[in-house]
């Protein structure tokens, strides 16, 4: 089993899509939202995913393919 903390950032046109619901429904993953902020033109959700490592990988790939940006939870870890 694996566990990963991620941040999804949604552009306006995706804010209304039930991405997280679908992530839980179509993949063997448990989603656990910790913090979120959804505005008119931009939204983000910080959540934890529980499941098999490969399944997390597959799920995140699908989320990225919808146009949602996926980042590690602490933001960019790459530093100057």
């Amino acid at each position, binding site marked *: 089993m694996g566990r990963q903390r991620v941040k999804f950032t949604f552009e306006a046109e995706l804010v209304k899509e039930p991405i997280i619901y679908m992530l839980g429904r179509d993949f063997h993953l448990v989603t656990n939202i910790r*913090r979120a902020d959804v505005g008119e033109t931009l939204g983000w959700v*910080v959540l934890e995913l529980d499941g098999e490592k490969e399944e997390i990988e597959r799920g995140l790939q699908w989320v990225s393919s919808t146009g949602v940006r996926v980042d590690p939870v*602490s933001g960019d870890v790459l530093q100057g």
Partner: protein
Amino acid sequence: MAFVSGLRCRECGREYPGEALNVCDFCFGPLEVVYDYATISEVVSHDRISAGPLSIWRYHDLLPASGDDPVDIMAGFTPLLKARNLGKRLGLNNLYIKNDSVNPSYSFKDRVVSVAATKSVEFGFETIACASTGNLACSVAAHAARAGMRSVVFIPSDLERGKVIGAAVYGPTMVAVDGTYDEVNRLCSEVGDNYPWAFVNINMRPYYAEGSKTLGYEVAEQLGWRIPDHVVIPSASGAMFTKIWKGFNELACLGLLDGVEAMTFGPDQNTVHHPAITTKMHMAQAEGCSPIVNAWAGGQSHVRPVRPDSIAKSLAIGNPADGIYALRVINESDGSAYAVPEPQVVEGIKLLAETEGIFTETAGGVTISALKHLAESGAIGRDELAVAYITGNGLKTQEAVEEVVNPLLVKPTMSSFEEALEGRAAVSQ
């Protein structure tokens, strides 16, 4: 000893012990160091600071690691120069350059890494690691060498040569990641979860980031315990920007600024604002990666992530972790944020070199071009005291300015030399 009482979540306020943690278990917000300021205010003084070493460790009372035996290659206490020539060009009579490009590994990162490395030793780690676009890798590898620790540095595979060599020479395990920027990021955060290493900007981040406060302390001390009216700072994650502001405010609250009354810190120490701190905080980013500037210009409290495409690689962070906190500092200080058009990055490098004899990297070019914009637009008044932070060294990004090389080619004779010199004079007339 360090006067740390623990860590606190910046979002929900939950408290944690002072361990190798960086995110809140509950809300996944970032953790920040909590200090015992009551004790600090009893011991700290100008005399005690001036009696300390000529490095960031002279401020050890205000740092989250013990100054007794730090991992110290003498980061900090870099020159603050009055920039008369550049000032004349820009119409500023009171301009200073904080030349942090002359740190031991040639960037301000030595400040943050010295603190993180000291803390890593304290926690008993044997390996110190980072994910970096260059400067951080150089600094981590250098401090690891000094501490006798192993280091592992992750860099994007397309980095400038000066940064690759400037890190590799200290003998780290270097991992050049072939992938998109986002993939590098994702990999590194996963590695951080799976290896018992001190990742300076992941599990050491709360301590690491505090090292940048010394950029605020030093400027104040070098100005005779005063603060500037304006500062211009290059930002990537936005962390340094917020910490310089915090540094000024800590000095004020502890009564360490001339003519300023001490004040108590509230429960959220990290965002304390002493009314005497009137410095306007100006942020500089390059247009090819300016998510924080965009948010400020659009009046948003969110930072919309971008895909970086900039010559200023050291500032190329698309999803800045401290972006929203930096935005708050800009607003609270009545500062501003400016995105420098890409071609002006190199112009900024040359302008500083030609006027003040300081060779900075692309991040410094961003700072100088933003400063020029602020001067020309009247945001900085002619007689106001302004400090521009130059945080990295030009020898690491030589590719950016290669076209300056244009020597007189002569035969080893006087006549050949004189002919060439006249030719050049004719051209430049």
